């Protein structure tokens, strides 16, 4: 197939699509994994309800990861190989975690009652493993796969930071999808998650420019810094606003229970834009840019045609599923 747009733009478009997939994954499966980790703090019926709140969604949410990694694989094949061989062990930990988490939904509902606690451990442990591995990989990626002690410590900071972020968005999801005592507990979890996330984002934002001269130059020079200032400022305003919102006594009508979730999603998006700006146009920091790594324009064109038609449809029926399962979570039943 002949490329129908300037080959210069194809890698840019695919970098954008890949970024969008990963951002959607981090927000959507982020709340799943956050709920998974938080379910360690609940028991019995409460835990069942937490699992039920994400039951109809987790599979589709996880598919954004497959699309993101798939776009990396198909659009930037060389980068895909380099990144994944560098991240061999954390990728394994993440996959093992996603396996243990994903199968637990079904097994915990179907196994003999005396085995259910094993699948609960698989659910909680899997969520934790996947989260920490993803955070670790994010850190390793930011530093260009540096293996020094300082870099490893940074990766651990990123792992803890992403765990805080997922707990935060997971708690916000529960505020939106639950009521009563569980919702009140979720508000407390969200408050803790909020401060931990804010601290982690601030720490990563401060340490990254110190560790990478290139990122330092991209942010702290005129006139860029003026154009970029809205990102940290909006993040700070959002954090403070959410903190105030979460500390108010509970409203009776519950009509605003979606606000923390929307706020958390926006915070994630802002953090993501910051990271994306730091790297563009590199797909592997300081080594390989998106034009060097791109697949042939013919191959990209044929994928783009499908994506343009299919992506809106996917977004449409994903929204439909969220609408069908709108409102407060109930215990799931097949019939």
């Amino acid at each position, binding site marked *: 197939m002949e490329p129908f747009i300037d080959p210069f733009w194809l890698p840019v478009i695919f970098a954008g699509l890949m970024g969008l997939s990963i951002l959607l994954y981090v927000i959507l499966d982020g709340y799943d994994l956050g709920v998974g980790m938080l379910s360690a703090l609940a028991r019995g019926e409460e835990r069942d309800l937490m699992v039920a709140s994400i039951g109809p969604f987790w599979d589709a949410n996880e598919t954004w990861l497959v699309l993101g990694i798939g776009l990396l694989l198909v659009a930037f094949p060389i980068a*895909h190989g380099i990144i994944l061989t560098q991240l061999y062990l954390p990728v394994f930990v993440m996959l*093992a975690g996603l396996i243990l988490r994903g*199968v637990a939904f079904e097994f915990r509902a179907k196994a003999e009652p005396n085995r259910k606690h094993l699948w609960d451990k698989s659910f909680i442990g899997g969520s934790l493993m996947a989260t920490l591995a993803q955070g670790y990989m994010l850190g390793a990626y930011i530093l260009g796969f540096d293996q020094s002690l300082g870099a490893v410590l940074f990766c651990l900071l990123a792992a803890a930071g992403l765990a805080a972020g997922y707990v935060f968005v997971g708690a916000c999801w529960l505020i939106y999808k639950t009521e009563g005592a569980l919702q009140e507990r979720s508000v407390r979890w969200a408050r803790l998650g909020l401060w931990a996330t804010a601290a982690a984002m601030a720490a990563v934002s401060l340490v990254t420019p110190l560790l990478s001269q290139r990122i330092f130059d991209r942010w702290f020079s005129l006139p860029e810094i003026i154009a970029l200032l809205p990102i940290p400022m909006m993040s700070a305003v959002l954090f403070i606003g959410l903190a105030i919102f979460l500390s108010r006594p509970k409203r009776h009508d519950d009509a605003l229970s979606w606000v923390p979730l929307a706020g958390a999603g926006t915070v994630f998006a802002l953090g993501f834009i910051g990271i994306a700006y730091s790297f563009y146009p590199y797909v592997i920091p300081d080594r390989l840019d998106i034009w060097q790594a791109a697949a042939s324009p013919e*191959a990209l064109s044929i*994928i783009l045609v499908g994506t343009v038609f299919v992506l809106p449809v996917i977004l449409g*029926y994903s929204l439909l599923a969220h609408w069908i399962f709108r409102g407060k979570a109930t215990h*799931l039943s097949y019939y």
Partner: protein
Amino acid sequence: MSELDPFILSRIQFAANISFHILFPTITIALGWVLLAFKLAFNRTGNEAWMDAYRFWVKVFALSFAMGVVSGITMSFQFGTNWPGFMERVGNIAGPLLAYEVLTAFFLEAVFLGIMLFGFRRVPNWVHTLATVLVAAGTTLSAFWILVLNSWMHTPAGFELRDGVVHATNWAQVIFNPSMPYRLTHMLIASGLTVAFLIAGISAYRWLRGDRGDGVAKALRSAIAMAALLIPVQILVGDLHGLNTLEHQPAKVAAMEGNWETRPNVPLVLFAIPDEEARTNHLEIGIPNGASLILKHDPNGVVPGLNDFVGEHPPVAPVFWGFRVMVGIGMLMLLVSWFTWWKIRRKGMEGAPRWLLQLLVGMAFSGWVATLAGWYVTEIGRQPWLVTGVLTTKDALGPVPAGMVATTLILYLAIYAALLAAYVLVIFQLAKRGDAAPQGKPMFPMPGGGEGPARPLREPLAPAE
């Protein structure tokens, strides 16, 4: 082996991952359509027994689907972690095919699975039926794309090489490459047979335990009919697939037949111990002219031998044995399904002797064994190539050290063994509980008495009038 070889370890790891993965799509591809058939049968007849069958098998479907999803994600990462050369060299073809699988199939099945499983009481009946159709179509579409890619790796077409990198020149030829129609049909029917024997085996198990509801009998009868109809078609399609392989990958067929010399009047070898060192078979038992007859439809037909491909043919023993296991199970399926059908056609379940039901229980997972054996034949049979004539498996290997691969391999195997055991155990536990009770149980039982269906069960499924 004194030293760990990352090549062998990576191959074993990929084989372990893909073997584990394929078990579950093999079930969900056909089970989705079977569930749809159960549901439509209920919509049409109003007979609660069909709904019993649906309610039981939708649980197995949900479990299998989750296992398939999580093991499938592993696959998409392993291309990069262990075989980066694959995407670097043939990414321009493999990439778009995989992308279309994710875009058209994965999201479709993932989103509508939620509605199919948990939406029964939230959406009108027709939407629930539509969701079931879309999930079944999604699994089948996913099989289509991945088999297009796999077939292209066996019989590449519609491309050119520029600086060692593959570029597509004709997408129609890429998609409808020579082996695709045969491989796709063969796999879809294999899925149907696997599901038929699984349903028959588990239903026989329930029947033997005294769980003799009409739903169990209907499921077993449907499964036997399905198996009896599909197995002759599968034998025919398998034969056509073999002829196609003979045309495009003769070395693979030579290994399947255990034939060393290119010659006429080649026997159909039933048993032998192939010896690659001595390049001959030991203890060979064969039917004279059999292979020539099957492959060339002529007792004097010349069948290619392995000695024409010295150094370039696949390892003989696994291909030879894999083929015999697959065909042997196929023949057993033919005998058992037809005999069972003959026994129950008039008298129903009472006509089936106890030993036959026990045999069906024993064959519940026989489809898995045959499917895996068949895949080993075709995948090992492609070696030493990863993409025939374009890229060898060795050239696609990544730089990860052997120790790391060995570590992850052991951990993967441990996880897979545990999950496989849990999966089979839970299916038999579900069968023991026989919880297709007409009273709907919540998926997550509540300690305080549980929650019944919000509206009468029959109502949402009653034929719309």
